[in-house]
């Protein structure tokens, strides 16, 4: 009885979180152009999607920005983590405090502060400014995933590699980096996700005529969302879902086999 | 023996279809220091958790002082537990930790303060009232965990591998501390460990467990000197376990050679196992021995030499204060009292059950 109540509670929360997603998926097959009515089942929007250059362009921008900003943030963030690990306590906590600012600060404040910066630097608003902004808010996610790994790192392994004749660079690539890799990887994925889902900061730092999916949707809100957008979102979500299921299944199976 | 305090009656427990305890029966007397000893997964911790009330047995009863407490929740049981890795409340001071149980019982402030003072004195940590647990060493945290339990004046104290996280030297010190505390408090201790030395040092009674069964119950001396089966013999200390034939009462053929022994009642020409402790194997001049062999290994161990002697096709483990270099021919002799005869188990299952004779 108690267990059943717990399961129902979890199910209700999950339902709450996924109901809108289900709704969007259903709408992507809705033949009627308005959200409000079900006009029968269709694949039309999925086909139209591939002819809609505006949406495809926004998708390309989004993916490009997400990938490049996550990559840059991963490199900068990983190097920063390594550097911070060797720092004195005081300096380190100052650095961590600054790292936390973009995470704890309101996105709107981060957005307008960067906008003011770009204006005063005379930068041209466009992909470049969006990219700089995304790298800025992505770095903390990388640092926060790499730092815990860094702490667990056994300094003796690095020294052992040196002792066995490896150079500093070799020792780092062969011994330290593999240990950090899971943290780096999850930092990259986290950064990629955050960049993909961002609207507010992009809204303030994008130029006219440059759109990501988020800003495109925002401008469409007033006129009504194009059903192709539902189709695209459904495709993205399902792709990610399948990827995650594949990634999560295989190691689990392996460990289970190992245990038995 | 003093009065019976706890009786575990026919306890069985399985997790995910895996039998952890199988019809376990155990009686613990008042004022006894009982140790549950065995390798990991033998069921000793589950037994302790059933006593503490954190696990409910599938079948069987827990009788405490004549009262069935099988379904009594942990917070209503007249016993306390010292947990593995201490489980101190890290957000409270030492004094608050110790006072936790007493506040629930709504004791007076004066009483609580006296108790904190007394308990800290008992565990040799006077003056630590206002420290936080994180600022203490492992050994000190362990003492606080004990103090926190005993201020409630439990009739039974359960200790779940309490010394496991400490280093060797500290562990030995704490063993004496625990014995002292037990004598001072006059309460019953049930102690779980996989460390045979710890069990031998502290216990009045040792319960050796394996695969959910009790293998042997007895005093440290009897467990060490008269193991009832190969598992116990192997688990407690080093030993030579050799297949043999019981020719008749008081005569056993070991590796084809006849040895006198003191056991009777095993029948005629019956296959058995014999256990001989390495310190009970005497090395003598070749012709003075019952069996002849050659020393193959030699290590100095401080108090004694440890040697391996190849004799009769078996590698004998020998502890002796006399040195016999590798390659030397020696004779082997064993006092009849030091030969322990055990029935051969017919299957693995029987190895486990056959002891409850």
């Amino acid at each position, binding site marked *: 009885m108690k267990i059943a109540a717990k399961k129902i509670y979890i199910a209700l929360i999950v339902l709450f979180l996924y109901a*809108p997603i289900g709704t969007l998926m259903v709408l992507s097959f809705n033949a009627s152009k308005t959200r409000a009515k079900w006009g029968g089942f269709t694949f039309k929007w999925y086909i139209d999607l591939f002819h809609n250059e505006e949406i495809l362009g926004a998708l390309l921008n989004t993916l490009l920005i997400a990938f490049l900003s996550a990559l840059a943030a991963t490199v900068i963030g990983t190097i920063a983590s390594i550097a911070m690990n060797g720092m004195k306590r005081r300096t380190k906590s100052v650095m961590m405090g600054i790292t936390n600012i973009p995470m704890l600060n309101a996105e709107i404040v981060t957005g*307008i502060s960067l906008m003011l910066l770009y204006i005063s630097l005379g930068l041209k608003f466009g992909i470049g400014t969006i990219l700089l902004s995304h790298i800025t808010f992505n770095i903390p996610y990388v640092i926060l995933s790499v730092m815990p790994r860094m702490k667990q790192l056994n300094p003796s392994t690095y020294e052992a590699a040196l002792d066995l004749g490896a150079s500093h660079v070799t020792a780092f690539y062969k011994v330290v980096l593999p240990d950090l890799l899971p943290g780096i990887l999850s930092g990259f994925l986290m950064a990629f996700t955050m960049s993909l889902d961002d*609207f507010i900061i992009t809204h303030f730092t994008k130029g006219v005529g440059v759109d990501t999916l988020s800003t495109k949707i925002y401008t469409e809100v007033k006129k009504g969302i194009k059903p192709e957008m539902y189709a695209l979102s459904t495709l993205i979500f399902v792709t990610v879902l399948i990827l995650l299921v594949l990634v999560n299944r295989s190691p689990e199976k392996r460990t289970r086999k190992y245990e038995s | 023996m003093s009065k019976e305090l706890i009786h575990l009656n026919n306890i069985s427990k399985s997790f995910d279809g895996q039998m952890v305890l199988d019809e376990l029966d155990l009686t613990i007397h008042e004022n006894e220091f009982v140790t549950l000893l065995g390798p990991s997964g033998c069921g000793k911790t589950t037994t302790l958790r059933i006593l503490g009330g954190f696990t409910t047995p599938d079948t069987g009863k827990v009788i405490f002082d004549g009262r069935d407490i099988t379904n009594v929740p942990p917070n209503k049981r007249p016993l306390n537990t010292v947990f593995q890795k201490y489980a101190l*409340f890290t957000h409270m001071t030492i004094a608050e930790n110790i006072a936790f149980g007493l506040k629930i019982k709504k004791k007076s402030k004066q009483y609580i303060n006296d108790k904190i003072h007394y308990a800290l004195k008992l565990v040799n940590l006077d003056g630590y009232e206002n420290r936080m647990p994180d600022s203490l060493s492992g050994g000190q945290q362990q003492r606080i965990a004990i103090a926190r339990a005993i201020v409630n004046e439990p009739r039974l104290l359960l200790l779940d591998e309490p010394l496991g996280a400490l280093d060797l030297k500290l562990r030995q010190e704490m063993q004496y501390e625990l014995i002292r505390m037990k004598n001072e408090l006059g309460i019953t201790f049930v102690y779980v460990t996989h460390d045979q030395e710890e069990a031998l040092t502290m216990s009045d009674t040792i319960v050796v467990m394996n695969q959910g069964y009790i293998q042997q119950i007895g005093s440290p001396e009897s467990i060490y000197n008269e193991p009832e089966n190969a598992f116990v013999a192997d688990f407690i200390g080093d030993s030579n376990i050799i297949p043999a034939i019981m020719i008749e009462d008081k005569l056993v053929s070991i590796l084809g050679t006849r040895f006198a022994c003191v056991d009777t009642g095993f029948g005629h020409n019956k296959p058995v196992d014999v256990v001989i402790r390495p310190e009970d194997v005497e090395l003598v001049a070749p012709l003075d021995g019952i069996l002849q062999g050659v020393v193959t290994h030699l290590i100095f161990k401080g108090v004694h030499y440890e040697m391996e002697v190849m004799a009769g096709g078996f590698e004998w483990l020998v502890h002796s204060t006399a040195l016999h270099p590798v390659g030397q021919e020696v004779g082997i002799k064993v006092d009849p009292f030091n030969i322990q005869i055990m029935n051969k188990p017919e299957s693995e299952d029987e190895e486990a059950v056959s002891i409850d004779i």
Partner: protein
Amino acid sequence: MTSKSKWLSAPYALWSVIFIIIPLGMILYYGLTDKTGAFTLDNIIAITTAGHAKALRLSVLLSLVSTLICFLLAYPLAMILANTKTNKHHFIILIFILPMWMNFLLRTLAWQTLLEKNGVINSVLTFLNLPNLKIINTPAAIVLGMVYNFLPFMILPLYNALAKIDKNVINAAHDLGAGSVYTFIRIILPLSVPGIISGITMVFVPALTTFVISALLGGSKLLLIGDVIEQEFTRTSNWHLGSGLSIVLMIFIVINMIASAIFDKDGEGSML
């Protein structure tokens, strides 16, 4: 290692100065000056004008309510999840991060479809002979949007904090005579404080400052302080006023940061 860490940390240090510190300085500069560049507090005092004060009050109220609802929904859930087997840790986190892969605006917009007069929820309610909901374009819809969007940010830190509590610590409390309510109040709740603080911060700040959720679910009449600031920057182009109002917002955020720094020294309540 220390000498090397200096130049290793240089790129990031430089980056944070240019893209974190200086931009914040610019907000301060714009917020405390007028169009001629002279120092003034007018942009900050502007928060007291009727329209702005009303927007701020509504923002604070709705974000507090949302934070409270998130906490009340998330705590029991986090407790249930923390008691499941540990090898599911990653899977549990995944369930609550996964929705982010569906665009945040679309997800929020989908609530319009669900909440509309003839929407999915009301159809179900009618079918069950229950009174219909009329919350679209009301503050309640904004609260729902906030709770919906920020609930995962409450669940994850709480879950992490609760999963970290040693089961034997709870057993020890029971062993010492504490019942479940007493154990919860004296042991579980205090030990989860880092998670609570982190969760509150992660929900309260974005809820307080949002302009999207109100725009999507609140109709055009309900203005939050975020909407006001956004309009100052994108429509009226009065950056000085917008920055001044942002400074007011940042006061709330700084209070929040200080609180989290005090209660969560080791970053135990972090989300990852």
